[in-house]
């Protein structure tokens, strides 16, 4: 492992994407994710990749659609309003069973909202973004090193299951610098080997492949969706990931993801210092949601507290996952305001953490 350097989350993610063999990047600038595009515009040409600033977010996601169809690893990145624009394309890519990686560095919404960190797009991202019956894989990093690690995993999972994978971050993670290390391995760009479905040049040596999301016969469309849902079932069984700290004996388990999980962990550490039995649970995969893991984590808890930088969205999935077996309360700040660990601690105490 090489020496650690300080990098912004956005830059670490971009470097990791290259190292995962991402050969093509299509994007359009928007704060707070622009460093991803800026970094790749410098690095991509040096390692034999393609950096393309599209004329719009809609164009960028459709370029990803085409590129993914050729079997090459590709990526786009944006922030909340830009992701809304990409939603049609994401649905088409899912409907065509193509792998790609999409980065969402969330900011405050709705509308143009603001440029400060937010988690108000949880519903949008974890419920598929666009129209139709489908899922996309969603990974939520919590540190700069994880920004890098998650993008690598996103490419692997996207290829394995032939579907879009999203790294869901926010402005805090994108903009902050922390130490990050990359190994010294040479960068190898991806190609279409091991992708027999790819629609690329084949010199008439095989039957041509067709990539499409249109099925006018209802039974045929139903069958493709059912087949896809079998894959989703496999993903839900095998690909969940979460981190639990001090949950075994906790009276109150605090559930948070992404950068908010760091703030929640600080509050839980302080609670423990004050003799309050609090635990911290962090979903790393948001789809698939870590259902078994969260049930194990809250088994001995009296109450659950969900903390988000939104008015409360993941809290619904927490209630579903534990089947409302414990009282679930919520604390959040929104619009770009970052909750302070002291506020979270106050909520833990209000919930009877002192009893």
């Amino acid at each position, binding site marked *: 492992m090489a020496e*650690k*350097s*300080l990098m912004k989350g956005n830059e670490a993610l971009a470097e990791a994407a290259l190292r995962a063999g991402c050969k093509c990047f299509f994007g359009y600038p928007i*704060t*707070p994710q622009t460093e991803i595009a800026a970094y790749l515009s410098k690095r991509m040409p040096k390692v034999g990749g393609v950096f393309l600033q599209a004329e719009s977010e809609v164009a960028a996601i459709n370029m990803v659609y085409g590129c993914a169809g050729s079997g090459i690893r590709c990526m786009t990145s944006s922030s909340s309003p830009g992701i809304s624009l990409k939603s049609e394309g994401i649905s088409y890519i899912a409907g065509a069973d193509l792998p790609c990686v999409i980065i969402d560095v969330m900011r405050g919404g709705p509308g143009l909202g603001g*440029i*400060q960190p937010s988690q108000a797009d949880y519903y949008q991202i974890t419920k598929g973004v666009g129209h139709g019956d489908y899922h996309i894989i969603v990974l939520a990093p919590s540190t700069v090193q994880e920004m890098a690690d998650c993008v690598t995993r996103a490419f692997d999972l996207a290829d394995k299951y032939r579907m879009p994978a999203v790294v869901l971050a926010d*402005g*805090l993670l994108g*903009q*902050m*610098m*922390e*130490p990050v290390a990359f190994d010294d391995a040479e960068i190898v760009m991806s190609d279409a080997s091991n992708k027999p479905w790819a629609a690329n040049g084949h010199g008439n040596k095989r039957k041509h492949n067709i990539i499409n999301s249109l099925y006018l016969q209802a039974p045929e469309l139903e069958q493709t969706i059912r087949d896809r849902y079998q894959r989703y079932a496999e993903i839900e069984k095998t690909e969940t990931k979460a981190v639990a700290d001090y949950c075994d004996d906790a009276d109150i388990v605090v559930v948070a993801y992404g950068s908010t999980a*760091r*703030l929640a*962990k*600080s*509050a839980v*550490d302080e609670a423990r210092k004050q003799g309050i039995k609090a635990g911290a649970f962090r979903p790393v995969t948001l789809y698939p949601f870590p259902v078994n893991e969260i049930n194990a984590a809250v088994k001995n808890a009296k109450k659950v507290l969900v903390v988000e930088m939104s008015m409360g969205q993941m809290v619904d999935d927490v209630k579903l996952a534990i089947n409302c077996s414990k009282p679930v309360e919520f604390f959040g700040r929104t619009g770009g305001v*970052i909750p*302070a*660990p002291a506020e979270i601690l106050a909520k833990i105490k209000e919930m009877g953490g002192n009893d």
Partner: protein
Amino acid sequence: MTNEFLLAGFGGQGILFAGKLLAYVGLYAGKEVSWLPSYGPEMRGGTCNCSVTVSDLPIGSPLILNPTQLLVMNTPSFDKFIGAVKPDGMAFIDSTLVEGTSDRTDIKCFYVPATGLANENGLKGMANIILAGKLLKEIGLTDEAVIEKAMKKCIPPKKADKLESNMKALRLGMDYEG
């Protein structure tokens, strides 16, 4: 042990650079570090600030509301943040640019005429580094080898000729009494 540095001033004074230097000093001293800039519209000509945490433990919130050390280079930021410094904390104030003084008795204030010192010593634009030097001295992170390694890392290769003057500015800050 956790140091929470809040650096604030105008855009263009090198607030983010000084923060990056402190973060690298922390990293090379074997600590956990985080660096978080303000990235709002204030970047464009208005006030600018940066949170740097250096700790023995993994860092939770990278956002600092109540610093243990404040480094401040303009009056609006001084007025805004001096009250937020934690009791027993320190403030490093560019007294060439900041009007007024603090009446807080529970923190140590160091009034360093950093911009004046920089101009007198042919180090124009390095007041940020002079203040960072004073800060490093006062918190006891003064291993010269570590600091020089951090400075080398922070200065891009094409500006390598600036290393010497930056190190001079750092030493000027470290040696400043007052």
